[in-house]
Structure formats: C-alpha cells, structure tokens
C-alpha cells in the first residue's frame, strides 16, 4: 500500500470512529429524552396532585451513562474484549511455540514500522486470532492456543501480518468501539422496551406527538438489529483489505491462503470469543458450517466474506507475485 493510501485509510477510520461515538451519544440522548417526552404526555392530563413528569431525568441519565460508556470503550475497550475472551498476556515466552509467536510478532511489527503490540494467548482449542486497541501505540494481538498448534511458522506469520495491518490502519479503533457499543445499544433497547410494557397513552392528542413516539419506539426495536448489521458490514469490507496489506508486509500471500484454509477446516466454534466481538477475528468465530451458507440475507449478518473467496484472491496475488520474477 502506498503511503498516501495508508494515510487515507487511517484518516477514514479515525473519522468513522468519531462519527460512531457521536451517533452513540445521540442515540442514547434520543432514547432518554424521547422517554421523558412520552412520560410527560402520559402524565400531562392527570389532575393536580398526581405525578407530573416535567424534568427530563431519563434523558439526562441516559446521556450521562452513554458518555461514561463511550469513555470506557475508548480507554478500556481493548481490555474488556481481551478479558471477555479469557486471554492471558504473553510477557516472557517459555515454550518454543511461545518464543516463535513472540518472534513472529516482532518481525511483523518491524515490517509494518509500528511499535511491537502486546501479545495475548487465548486458552481455546479452536484456531482464531484478533487484534484490538485504540491506536498502534496501544494495541494488542490475541491468538488462540489452537492456532499456535495448527499453523506452521510461515502461516502464523501471515496471520499476524493480517492483524498487524488492522492495527496500522486503525481498523482496531473502529472495531473495538463497535464491539463495545453494539452490546450497550442492545441492552438499553431491551431495557426500555420492557419498561414500556403496560404504559397507555391517554389523551395524547396532537398527531405530531404520536409520530414522534412512533419513531421513538421504532428506534428502540430497530437499533440493535441495525447496529449489528453495521458492525458486520464494516468488518466485511476491512477483511479483504487486511488480507491484501498483510500480504504486502510478509510478501507471502500464499501462506495466508493456506492458513485460512486450515483454520476453516476446523469444525468447532471459538467458544471463548463472545458473539459481540466476532467481527474482530480473522475468521468468524461462530459455527463454520452454518457460516458457509450463501445468500443475500445471511450475508447481511456475516462479519467475514466467505473463506473460499478470500483464498481465491490471495492465490491470485501469489501467482501474480511469482509471475513477476
């Protein structure tokens, strides 16, 4: 990737991350103040002496909570994702496998020209890997024990190169924020919809108010689905790019192709990686057999393009490189 292109990728990811945080705050404010408005309408017609909802407490609380969540996602999002996967940090390599992982990460950090990220090992037999963090100075790479056992040195290097390019072009910032926020959106929507049950609007009157409330309820229902689709779509587009730029780091596209094929052949789901962080991984951590079905609708919810398409592209690159020699 030329430097102009890399710079454009980094700028685009930083911009999208800022929009994501902004959208997240606006969503919570809308949910909160919308709820206040509904309560205001519901209590307006009541005779004096009853409770009248005049101060938008829910909106203020929701905005404050969202700000706190966004702050946590920014500062500690990577730790949350790593913590949820049960990963431990590899500081002093002991076994030959750990030594090799440590070396390979150092090699790829040199190739990418970024500081060496922190290394984490996930005690899971299924092969998978992901990168997380805020920027190249605060980045982590996590691989499962299964991956270390399955891949050759070259293939491991290719997987680490793929993750390293996610780090270098700031994919990790966008992806980690998404991982933290998708869960929060789902939670608040669920909570608000539940507390809505049994509420009746009496004499709400004005059609404008009805429309606002309708949109508000629709937002609550659609937001979790929309945010999930968003995170999957963002990730899908980034995977091809990371495959390609990773191959430029280790100059060996065929190694990543064979690594992906090997990982794809492993039938188990990566259980230690929770659903909300799936889009961070090099291959979808869900059931592989289920994920391989094709179709328009299933594609919407998939965080990764089908493995065979990624392998085909990498093989194309590999033969082009060899042909030039």
């Amino acid at each position, binding site marked *: 990737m030329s*430097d102009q292109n890399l710079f454009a990728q980094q700028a685009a990811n930083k911009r999208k991350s800022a929009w994501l945080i902004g959208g997240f705050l606006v969503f919570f404010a809308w949910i909160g103040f919308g709820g206040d408005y509904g309560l205001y309408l519901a209590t307006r017609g009541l005779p004096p002496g009853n409770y009248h909802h005049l101060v938008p407490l829910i909106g203020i609380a929701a905005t404050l909570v969202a700000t706190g969540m966004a702050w946590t996602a920014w500062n500690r999002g990577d730790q949350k994702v790593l913590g949820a996967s049960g990963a431990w940090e590899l500081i002093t390599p002991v076994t*030959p496998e750990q*030594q*090799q992982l440590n*070396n*390979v990460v*150092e*090699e*790829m950090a*040199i*190739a990418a*020209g970024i500081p060496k990220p922190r290394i984490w090992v996930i005690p899971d037999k299924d092969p998978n890997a992901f990168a997380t963090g805020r920027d190249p100075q605060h980045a982590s790479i996590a691989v499962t024990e299964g991956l270390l056992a399955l891949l050759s*040195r070259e293939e491991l*290097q290719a997987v680490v190169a793929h993750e390293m390019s996610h780090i270098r072009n700031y994919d990790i910032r966008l992806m980690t924020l998404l991982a933290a926020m998708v869960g929060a959106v789902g939670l608040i929507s669920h909570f608000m919809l539940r507390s809505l049950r049994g509420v009746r609007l009496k004499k709400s009157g004005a059609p404008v108010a009805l429309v606002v409330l309708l949109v508000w309820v629709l937002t609550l229902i659609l937001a979790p689905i929309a945010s999930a689709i968003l995170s999957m779509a963002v990730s899908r587009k980034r995977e091809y790019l990371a495959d390609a730029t990773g191959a430029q*780091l280790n*100059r060996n596209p065929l190694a990543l192709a064979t690594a992906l094929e090997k990982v794809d052949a492993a039938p188990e789901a990566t259980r230690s990686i929770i659903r909300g962080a799936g889009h961070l991984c090099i291959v979808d951590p869900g059931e592989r057999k289920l994920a391989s079905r094709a179709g328009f609708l299933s594609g919407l919810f998939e965080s990764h393009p089908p493995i065979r398409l990624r392998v085909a592209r990498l093989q194309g690159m590999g033969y082009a490189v060899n042909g030039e020699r």
Partner: protein
Amino acid sequence: MPFVILLVVAAVLVLWLVGAYNGLIALKNQVVNAWKQIDVQLKRRHDLIPNLVNTVKGVMNFERSTLEAVISARNKAVGAQGVAATAKAEGELSQALGRLFALSESYPELKSSQNVLQLQEELTSTENKIGFARQLYNDVATQYNTRQAQFPTSLVAGLAKASPADLWEIEDAAERAVPNVDLSLDQPKA
C-alpha cells in the same frame, strides 16, 4: 491593496517553505531510524552466530571449513562500515549461514536437539527481522530520495542538507546470477 497581495503571497511562500523543509527533515529522521532498526538486528545476529557454531561444532566436526567460513564472514560483517559495505558483508554472511543450515539437515542428532532448534528459531527470526527492516529502510529511503529530487521540494533540499540515502542492494551473487542454459543436446545440430 497591492501591498496586501504581496504580503499574502509572501506568507504562502513562507508556509510552503516551512512545510517542505519539515517534511524533508521528518523523512530524513525516518531513514536514520529505519537504519538503526537494521543495525539492532545485525548486532543480534552477530551475537548469535558464535553460540550456534559452538553448539554444532561437536556434531559437525567434518564440516570445519563451512564453520570457519561462517566465523570469518561474521567477523568481516562486524567490522563493515556504511550501507553498501554492510550490505555486501551481510549478504556473504547470509550465504555462509545458508550453507551451514543446508548441511545441518543431514545430521539427525542436530534436528532433535532442543538447544539447536531454539538457536535456529532465533537465527531464522533474526534473518527475517533483517529482511523486514531492510524492506522498511528501502521504502523510507526511496520516499526520501524521491521527495528531495522532485520539483519544487528540490529547491529546499540544500537548505535541509538532504542528500540521497543509499539503498540496501542485494549483493547476493547466487540471487543475481543468470542461469547458464544449454539447450543443445548431445547429438550435433543438423
């Protein structure tokens, strides 16, 4: 009014000058830094080689000349100065090491030794790091060389004391050699 226009033009010129100058200096420092990265890895390689030779010496007694070639190439590389000379000496060292590794394939007792395997992993990694550091160095140096030669940044090049950085050329005779292909068969041509 003309005075204002003149002032604006002068301000734009000065801003461009500062930008171009700082850009060149930043690139120059990147080149220096990339070279230091290579240097660190080369030093590590030089430190590892005596270890390796000592470990395999007992087993590979018959390959004394190969071991000596590695040691002498290593000593030459330690003393090399400048990009071109370092690149040449390190290239020769890589070749000598390659021969040693190729020969070690025929010693099963070496392949089963944990110690040797560990050393080999360290050396492989160091070789890779040298390769990737070289890749980064050449990329940054090419960018620096292009920038200082391109108009109009070339006008500032003298001010920033910029001069073209040497690229790390591959001085590997085996990689450079054109294969000598003889297509003639034994029977005389008609």
